Each structure stands twice: as C-alpha cells, then as structure tokens.
C-alpha cells in the first residue's frame, strides 16, 4: 500500500516533561521516526560545582518532582560513598521503606492517571469521573495514602525533607509506625481491586526482544537500593563500572545522547526489574503477576505498566514487613542526624569520589560525584532512566510502525503515544543529564 502519513505529536501529554513524536511514512515506507526531547535544559551538573556535597541531595532531588525521593536516595548514596560514611542498619531499613513509598507513589500515578485513560478510551481522568467514578476515587485515594506515608516518614513526597546524608533528621515515633502500617493495610485492599481492574483491561499486543538492565545482587530481597548492574543477557558489573553499561552515543537526528550495552539498545524500569528479579518478588506479587497474565521474560513494552502493578503489590507487602521489623527492634533516636552542610563537623571530610546506583520507579538511576578535601563538589554526573530508554523506545517504534501501517493516522498516533507512555518517561529528568563528564 502506498501511502503518506505525517505524525507530529507536539508536546506529548500525560508524561513528565516535554517530548515530541515525529513520524513520516512516505509511499508506504517508514521514512523518519524519532522521539524528540524538547525540555529546556537546567544545567544541574554544572551548578552543583562549588557547592557543599552535603547540599547535593537537597538540590538534585529538584531535578524531578515525581521521583524526588529516588534522586535523594541516589544522591545520598553517592555522597556517602565519596565521604566514606556507612549508613546504620536502622537508616538502611528506613531508606528501603522510603524507596518503596516512592515506587508506589509514582507507579500509582502512572498506572491510573497516565495510562488508564488510554485503556478506557478517554483523553484524561476527567471524563472518567462520569463513567468510572469509583476507579477515579480509588486512584485519588491511593495517591493520597502514598503521599501521607511520605509525609509521615520524610515530611513530604515532593522534595523529601528529613532524608539526609548520614541518616534522617527526624525519626518516626511508635505512633507514626502504627499509622504507616494502617495506611499500607488500606492500600493493600485497594491494590487487590487494582489488580482485578487491570486484569480485565486489554493492553496492545506487541513484542520486541531487547536487553533488560537493572540492579541485581546475591541477597534474598528484590534489589532496589543496592546491587550490581545486571542484564537479562547474563552480564553483571559493579556500579562503579556504570560507564561500561551506558556507553553513550549520538544519533544523527537528535542532539540528546543514547545508551547501549550488548545490543543496539537496552531497557530499564519495572519490566526490566521484573524480568531480572522475578524470583525475589513477594509471593503476593507473584500471585498478582499470575492474575495479570505476565511472566518473565516478558518482551511486550506496553506491559511495563503491568509490571508496575506487580511491583506495587510487592512494595506494599515488603514495606509492611520493614515496619514490623523496625517496630520489633525499637527505634534508636540517638541516630537523629543534624542536617545542613556538616557545619558542626559531625562527619570527617575527605577528598573523594562516589557512585550511587538506585532502582527508581523508571529504572536504574546513577549519581556520581567528586569532591575536594573540604567536601566541595568538583565534578558531578547523573545517568537518568529515561535517557537509557530513549533509544529502545525509538527502536520499538521502528519495529511497530510497519505492523500497524494500515491503520488510521489517529490509531497509529495513539499506539505510539501509548508506547512512549508505557515507559513512563521522565523528560524533565532526562534532559539536563545527558553527558558523561567525570573521566
């Protein structure tokens, strides 16, 4: 069939940040296909230089409002690594709890407010208020509960306050633990309904095999906060060798850099984690996976959203166990950290370099800092999940378009928008974090 189609999605909606999809089909053949990043750069890495490394988490969490807690945790890990600070067991547990809250909050936003409207055939959640009021109410309630969990633990979800280098500037009371546990139990019920709802919805069918990359480790738990970098092609390297993984390169049609490891592209995110670490998921999460008809290795990128649902079940269950664990141990309030830029000299300073590698909602996030003997940042680099996914998304589109070329322009556009959305791209994050600067 010879046919000309031009698709220009100017400002992709229901994603975080500004991106465009440009597709040109000429005489029935794919002529051009690109995902453009048009967000204004903010130059975080440049202006971190000259600031105290103790300020890095406060500043870098402002790269992104949605994964603010994730940036905070990666930043803290990199800074503590550079300074040689070892977190206590209590701190580590609370950070794992915070990361669970982050995954939950972001996943629920994505599953319900960003993806569900497509599956239900409407442009946003607003029309759903009329047609699916209970679904909207449940989504908003779950979102509120996640926010309240973060409020209790770290003051707020968007730009957490009390998670700092060295530990926490505020520690939860017994009553706080009780409240958080109660909210997680509430979420558990809503999550069951969520699984039921999404099991009844149809996701587009499309498969393309790729290399899935994420943290792996030898411990029993599903790795989110610590690990080496592994891939479904069987490779494993230390986080310090992240540059071996990301191999940034430039494509002629886009100024933003791309990444690849052993194949033309790779993918990070919930689906990558699911494929890499399925065995370590909580039994209830595995039950949810069965109900949702997803199993590893799943190579349908649209099902990243489904993997997020499975992970949400896991995070709720594991967060509950962490709280029960902390409860039994009792909280040591002597560990409260006095924050700020180490004005009181609580931590010995040294010149150094550190790497933080954390699984945030959209995938593997790396922060890498260098500081001098006064703790002043001299070099900074961040590798953002969305940057790692961009090339993979584009290759998905190249593979998908010929398969759906006989459909209407609207249908092709929707299929492509849904594909990009499935990756839950965070374009605000990706744009200013493109180059590798520390050699």
């Amino acid at each position, binding site marked *: 069939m010879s046919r000309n189609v031009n698709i220009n999605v100017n*400002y992709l*909606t*229901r*994603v*975080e*940040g500004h991106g465009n999809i440009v597709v040109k089909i000429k005489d029935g053949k794919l002529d051009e296909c690109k995902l453009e990043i048009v*967000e*204004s*750069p*903010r*130059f975080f*890495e*440049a*202006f971190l230089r000259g*600031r105290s490394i103790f*300020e890095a988490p*406060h*500043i870098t969490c*402002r790269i*992104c*409002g*949605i994964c*603010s807690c994730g940036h905070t945790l990666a930043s803290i890990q990199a800074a503590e690594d550079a300074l040689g600070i070892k977190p206590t067991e209590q701190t580590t547990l609370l950070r794992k709890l915070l990361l669970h809250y982050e995954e939950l909050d972001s996943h629920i936003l994505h599953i319900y*407010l960003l993806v569900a409207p497509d599956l239900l055939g409407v*442009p*946003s*959640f*607003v029309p759903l*208020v009329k047609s699916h009021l209970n679904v*909207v*109410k449940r989504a*908003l*309630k779950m*979102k*509120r509960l996640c*926010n309240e969990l973060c409020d209790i633990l*770290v*003051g*707020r979800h*968007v*730009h957490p*306050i*009390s998670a700092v280098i060295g530990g*926490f*500037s*505020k520690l939860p009371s017994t009553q706080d633990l009780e409240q958080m546990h109660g909210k997680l139990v509430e979420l558990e019920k809503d999550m069951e309904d969520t699984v039921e709802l999404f099991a009844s919805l149809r996701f587009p069918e499309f498969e393309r095999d790729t290399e899935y990359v994420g943290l792996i480790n030898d411990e029993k738990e599903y790795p989110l906060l610590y690990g080496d970098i592994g891939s479904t092609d069987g490779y494993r390297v230390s986080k310090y060798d992240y540059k071996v993984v990301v191999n940034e390169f*430039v494509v002629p049609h886009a*100024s933003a*850099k791309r990444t690849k490891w052993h194949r033309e592209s790779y993918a990070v995110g919930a689906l990558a984690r699911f494929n890499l670490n399925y065995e370590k998921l909580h039994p209830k999460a595995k039950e949810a996976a069965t109900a949702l008809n997803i199993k590893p290795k799943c190579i349908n990128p649209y099902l990243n959203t489904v993997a997020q649902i499975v992970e949400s079940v896991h995070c709720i269950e594991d967060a509950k166990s962490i709280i029960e664990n902390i409860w039994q141990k009792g909280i040591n309030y002597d560990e*409260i950290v*006095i*924050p*700020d830029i180490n*004005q*009181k000299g609580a931590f010995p300073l040294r010149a150094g370099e550190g790497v933080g590698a954390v699984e945030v909602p959209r995938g593997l996030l790396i922060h890498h800092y260098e500081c001098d003997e006064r703790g002043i940042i001299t070099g900074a680099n961040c590798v953002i999940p969305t940057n790692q996914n961009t090339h993979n998304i584009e290759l998905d589109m190249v593979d998908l378009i010929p398969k759906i070329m006989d459909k209407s322009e609207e249908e092709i556009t929707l299929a492509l928008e849904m594909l990009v959305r499935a990756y839950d791209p965070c374009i*605000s994050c990706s744009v*200013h974090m*493109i*180059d590798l*600067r520390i050699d």
Partner: protein
Amino acid sequence: MSKPKVAFFDFACCEGCQLQVANLGEMVLDLIDIVDIVEFREVMSEKWDGEFDVSFIEGSITDEHAVERVKKIREKSKILVALGSCATIGGVNGMKNSFNLEEAGRYVYGEAYKFFPTIHTKAVHQVVRVDYFINGCPIYQPEFLTVLKCILKGLPYYVPEYPVCVECKLNENVCMYDRGLTCMGPVTKAGCNSWCINNGNICYGCRGLTINPNSQGFKDVLKKFGIPEDFLMKKIEMYNKCKELDES
C-alpha cells in the same frame, strides 16, 4: 454562569508543584467541581484554544522560546499565577546565573551544547505581568487552596511578609541557630508553616527573601554564632540568585 477555565503550564522546572496539585487526593474532585481544568499536560491530553480565566505557570524562563511562549499565554489569560519557586523567584534554576552560560553548557553537553541555547534564568514576573504568587519548592498545598479561593472570589492575596521564624516559634521548634546551624528562616517569607524545620531540617530559603528583611538583626544573629557573611551568601543564592535581576 459557566465554570472558570483554568490551565496549568510548565516551563523549566521539576513539575513537582503541578504534582502537588494532583496530589490533593480526593479533593481534586471538589476542585474540578468548581473550575473547568482545560489544559494540564502532565496529567491530561485535552487542549484548549480559547482564552483562559486563570493560568498557572510553573517553572522559570530559561530560553527565548520560553519568553515567547509565556508572553502568548499572558495575552490569552485574564489572571496569571506564578506557581512555585522556579516561577516566583527563579528558584534553584537561578544558580546557573553564577556561571558563564557557555561554560555551563559545555560542562553538561560537551560540544552538543549549541543545541541547547539558554539565557539567564528569569522568574516569570521578570518577563510578563504576574497577578498572584504562590511561593515554595514545592508549593504548600493549604496556601495553594487559599490563593485559589482568593482568585475565584476576585480578592487579592498577600504573601506573608514576616519571616519563617514567626511560624517556627509557634510550632515550638528548637531554633536551628541554637543547634549550631545556619538557617535561612530569619530572612525567608513565611507561609509554609515552617515545613522543613518541623521535620528536623533547616530552612533553605525556597520561598524567597522577605521584602524588608531585618538585615541588622540577622547580622547580629550571625555575629553571635560566629558565622561569616559570605558563607551565607552562598546559601541565599541557592534559591534567590535571580533577585539581582529585579534590582538591576
């Protein structure tokens, strides 16, 4: 009477302030009951070609394209609101202004920096007229709702001109200076209910400097605790660097 048409637009920012609105939980339903949200790209695909009764602008103005875009939005908007620190005072984006822009560009993007033309970061009011300011990084939801009510009733909203210390005292926090730390509370606009200090951290000054800060009092505090003034300038710059564009 039809519901007022409200839109949210984002410029250079983290989109966390819009998220604070989406994070209102079930209250979002009450919100869409009284206003007609016609554009909100982060969570909606709907677009609107007509005029806006109220436009919320999140983010700073950091390139020429943004200057033109915000001017167009201003033309189409009866009321324009700067939402969050990036919009009201330039916020963390302002730190860029301390650097040579070409050098900063090269540092992040290497030779590809030319693909990312940039200008000195500006707050929204440094480009177009702003009718209401909602400070904070991120915005404090109770204040957002207060301002929204004022807008809908046609009343002005006055950002508190007293410092964060006033709210902090009411919350009975131990003063950070007494804990040996330098806090921006004494010179930062209140309205956040001393959010950060309540959670054991210092104030970083995200809501902007008070219009008439008690400089002498503040210098006395710094002297009492032996803190050099230039040390403090670095702290002020974290959020308030763009203020010098107001003064020039």
